[in-house]
């Protein structure tokens, strides 16, 4: 039996597995921010355009707990749209939770293995997304033909992040994935793209090599055997007959009276004639006139995840590039992310609020190098101060010049006060210890809600400080 959850049209599906599986029928009231609250979505395909938009919104999200959610499409009719087939985890024709439970459980289990990573690290986040998507459901990444996409083929999960116009990034991401052997490439098709912008939307046309005009017409040349006159067909046409303009004889029989030895091109509206037009491919996206030989050749592949790809999906290399130095009472940044994720899960099931705060020292690399070993001692002192002045339930982490503090069961206002206190103390400490340098201290706080996504929360904290 269906049970109303959020609105009259978002319905929780009763199931024996204690899973939050919901059926979405009215897309106008579908709030994507609430997706992390569910274990799986079933989208009604009755309103196909809205359904497709919802699928795109979910899979296009940058938030892992949204884009990795198991998603099924409910449709009695067969769905031929390849994009939907690629983006959905299956098409079902009735609401049978048994059939999807195993899949949902598998995805959940694999998601648990995924390590949080620093979104500021110099890694290709779109690639990580593709890897994680592929890994979480053992999915072969198939390119889908799409005339709206700039190269004509897209990997839907990638395209949703990059947009249909970003050929370069798609090519680069897939190239990187194959080059680093995260995916095994299986040839599907070969494309020829604009050498300037990589668009596949090309207009092949014959041009006059001299004037570059494409306004051309072709005419057969006719050679009259008897008098050796040769000229374009129009020279001979008189009504429905061919009459030789030189000797006025009627040409009756091809091969006996005349032949057509070649073709002549004519630039309409001029007296320019030629035989060998140049073939160019004009890019309809950027207008570049490509020589056909200069077109970029691009092979499209099915991408099958490799063992290296699995490793990268779980823990992207380079995501640890921000140095994690562990002080007493502090945990690594990646562990902090895991804690934050669990805390969000906890908030979902409890009615309590938690908060998170960030304190950041505005230290340039120049200041850091001038301070030398002194800076390490200052950081140690600050870490010690924070550790001693926060509750034992608080979870602490440090990354470079930033200190993250997770306040479980703490409302935002209280968290704000605590953070401000710590910030004042640190400012004072710096004033006393580093008189010769001007180091500003910034802080910010965020509330953790059931709809929060850990990566977004961390990024949001960092972004608000950087914009401060």
């Amino acid at each position, binding site marked *: 039996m269906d049970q109303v959850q959020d609105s009259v049209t978002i319905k929780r599906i009763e199931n024996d597995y204690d899973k939050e599986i919901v059926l979405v029928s009215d897309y106008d009231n579908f709030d994507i921010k609430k997706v992390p609250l569910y274990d799986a979505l079933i989208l009604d395909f009755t309103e196909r355009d809205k359904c497709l938009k919802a699928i795109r919104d979910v899979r296009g999200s940058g938030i892992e707990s949204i884009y990795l959610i198991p998603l099924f499409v409910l449709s009695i009719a067969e769905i031929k749209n390849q994009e939907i087939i690629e983006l959905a985890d299956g098409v079902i024709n009735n609401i049978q939770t048994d059939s999807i439970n195993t899949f949902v459980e598998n995805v959940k289990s694999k998601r648990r293995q995924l390590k949080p990573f620093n979104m500021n690290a110099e890694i290709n986040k779109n690639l990580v997304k593709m890897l994680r998507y592929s890994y979480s459901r053992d999915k072969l990444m198939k390119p889908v033909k799409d005339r709206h996409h700039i190269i004509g083929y897209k990997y839907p999960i990638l395209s949703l992040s990059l947009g249909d116009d970003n050929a370069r990034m798609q090519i680069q991401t897939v190239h990187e994935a194959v080059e680093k052997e995260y995916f095994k490439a299986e040839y599907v098709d070969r494309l020829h793209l604009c050498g300037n912008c990589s668009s596949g939307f090309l207009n092949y046309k014959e041009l006059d*090599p001299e004037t570059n005009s494409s306004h051309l017409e072709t005419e057969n*040349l006719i*050679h009259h*055997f*008897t*008098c*050796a*006159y*040769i*000229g*374009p067909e129009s*020279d001979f046409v008189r009504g429905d007959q061919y009459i030789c*303009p*030189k*000797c006025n004889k009627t040409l009756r029989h091809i*091969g*006996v*009276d005349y*032949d057509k*030895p*070649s073709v*002549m091109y004519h630039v309409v509206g001029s*007296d320019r*004639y*030629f*035989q*060998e037009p140049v073939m160019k491919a004009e890019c309809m996206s950027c207008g570049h006139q490509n020589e056909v030989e200069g077109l970029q050749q691009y092979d499209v592949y099915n991408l099958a995840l490799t063992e290296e790809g699995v490793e990268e999906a779980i823990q992207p290399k380079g995501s640890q590039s921000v140095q994690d130095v562990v002080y007493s009472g502090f945990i690594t940044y990646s562990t902090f992310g895991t804690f934050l994720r669990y805390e969000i899960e906890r908030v979902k099931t409890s009615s309590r609020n938690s908060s998170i705060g960030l304190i950041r020292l505005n230290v340039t690399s120049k200041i850091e190098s001038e301070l030398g070993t002194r800076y390490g001692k200052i950081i140690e002192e600050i870490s010690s101060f924070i550790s001693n002045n926060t509750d034992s339930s608080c979870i602490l982490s440090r990354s470079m010049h930033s200190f993250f503090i997770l306040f479980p069961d703490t409302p935002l206002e209280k968290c704000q006060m605590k953070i401000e206190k710590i910030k004042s103390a640190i400012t004072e400490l710096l004033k006393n210890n580093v008189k010769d340098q001007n180091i500003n201290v910034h802080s910010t706080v965020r509330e953790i809600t059931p709809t929060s996504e850990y990566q977004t929360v961390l990024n949001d904290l960092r972004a608000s400080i950087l914009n401060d």
Partner: protein
Amino acid sequence: MFVDYWEYFVNYWFEKSYLEIIRTFWYFFILELPRFLLFDFIIVISVILNRQNLKTRYQKARKLLWAEMPLISVIVPGKNEGKHLYKLVNSLKEQTYFNYELIVVDDGSDDETPLIGRDLEKNGYIDKFVRNDVRGGKASAANLALRYTKGKYIVHLDADTSFDRDSIENILLPFFFGENIGAVGGNIKVRNAEDSFCSTLQAIEYLNTISMGRIVSTELGIYRIISGAFGAFRTDVIKRLGGWDIGPGLDGDITVKFRKLGYKIHFEPKAVGLTNAPTNFPTLSKQRLRWSKSLIRFRIRKHSDIYIPGKNFNLLNFISFVENVTYDVILNFLWWFYILDIVINNMRMLAIVIPLKVFMYMIMDFVQFTLILMISERWKKELKLYLYLPAMVFYNSYYMRFIRTMAYFKEIFWFSSYKDPWNPAKTSIKAFRNKL
């Protein structure tokens, strides 16, 4: 023994009366000496004496040419001529007259000509490269070029011809003499004279028949063949004529058609083009058989109306044809009779008469060649050809006469020019049926 023979040889002149000598060598003294030496001598003297006037005439024409500086169309029809094209365009690039468009027609080549031609066109060396995938013959190739020309004058070239730097300029000058000149023939010389004995003899022959022979015929107003290797035509006239008709011998044919329309034809000795002559006698024989057959086909059959008085009758055209047919056809047959006459009437003296005959022709060749060098622009280079002059008597009097006789028989009785593979069969059949 040699001394005895020599005495006998010399004494022959003194022992025989003038009349007896003329009776024996009547062909030489009555027919050939006046035509080939007397006319040459008169014309050379006239050219030398008239140099100042000619200079002024050319200067005026040059001024007019450069004042107008018309666009001219250089057309090069041919098959499998790709290997010559790069040299040709380079030769043309060096020309003092530069306002030209170059149109090359590839008449169904089966070698790399299309690739070479397209490449040269792409790189701007050729203005228009037109290819017929199916071979149509030289006339249709030239007509195809003609169809797309824009120039006021057309210069028709063979791809293997190269030019002195001022050749194009010089070939255009006669159009500015103000004498209703419709077409101008260039002065073709042999480039590969040193390649073989055969080509050396042709170098002398070209100087004789083209450089000198055509100066004479143009001065007499009976010049009748503009070589396909290098000739210039007024575009309006040639288009009015519908271009070239089916060959072989289309260059002579087009010249006659110009003459029939009342236009003067001029030979320009200063417009020098160099071409490669056949380097062996079998190839040369084939070429000359073709040339000689065309004389029967065009001068006697196709343009027979020239001989018939009527409203379009033109005395100079008549003389031109009569002179051509007389010296090249009639006297050619008569020569065999002459040889027979010598043999029959001088049976006991043959050992003296034949060498004497050869000796006289040699003397004539030496004098004639000296006259040629007197007006040649590259006489120093041509001096060494003197060494080969003794062979010319055998080349002209025996070899060439034999080839010509064979060609005339073949054409008169078997119409063999219509079977010449030089032209595609599909067009030759039509030409034969239409008596073209």
